[in-house]
């Protein structure tokens, strides 16, 4: 899976993109978020409060309960502030 980070999520984590191997335990966006948070450091900070985070799966807005699979593009970012 290709995992992308934007805005302050990217800044806390320290990079914008990484490849993470899909495993059977990673069933949902939330499972991936928990696995990343457990890495500690900037990851733990970025994922500390899920209410402040939004996600997308394959470039479509998705909830933390959305299913994920090998080959997916998953993104984490703050609520959007364009316009």
């Amino acid at each position, binding site marked *: 899976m290709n995992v*992308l980070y934007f805005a*302050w999520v990217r800044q806390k984590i320290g990079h914008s993109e990484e490849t993470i191997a899909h495993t059977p335990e990673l069933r949902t966006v939330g499972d991936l978020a928990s696995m990343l948070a457990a890495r500690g450091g900037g990851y733990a900070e970025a994922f500390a409060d899920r209410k402040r985070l939004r996600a997308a799966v394959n*470039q479509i807005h998705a909830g933390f309960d959305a299913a994920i699979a090998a080959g997916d593009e998953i*993104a984490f*970012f*703050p609520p*959007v*502030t*364009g*316009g």
Partner: protein
Amino acid sequence: MSQNIHIQVEDFDVSEEIEALTRERPAATGAVATFTGYVRSDDGLSALTLEHYPGMTEREIARIASEAAKRWPLSGVTIIHRVGRLKVGERIVLVAVASSHRAAAFAACEFLMDYLKTKAPFWKQEERGGDAQWVEAKSSDDAAAERWRKS
């Protein structure tokens, strides 16, 4: 309906965009409504930096434009959103909507801006002095988008 969606660093010319939009389907176009957003100087703000999600941003805006075309009889939509560092007074965003009649053009323009602000993946960072802060999403923007769900 024609859709012209551009995410770009460069500025845009509003009258050129209106010209291009009306030329596409002149027989069907009786009205063009536009909205232009600018960088405002709030509490000593000197510049904004806009980040986006290449691919998803274009896709999400196209989806929003198609939704508008289902609700109103539109002949064309142009949406331009700038990214990168923008100083006070610079243009950020253009939404131009062509329709047969003004009511649809006005309504669709407002609908598109409300959805753009709450769904399109852009993030603003504000510069004040030497300090840079990410802008927090506003609940008033969510409320503005939400009202279209009921109508």
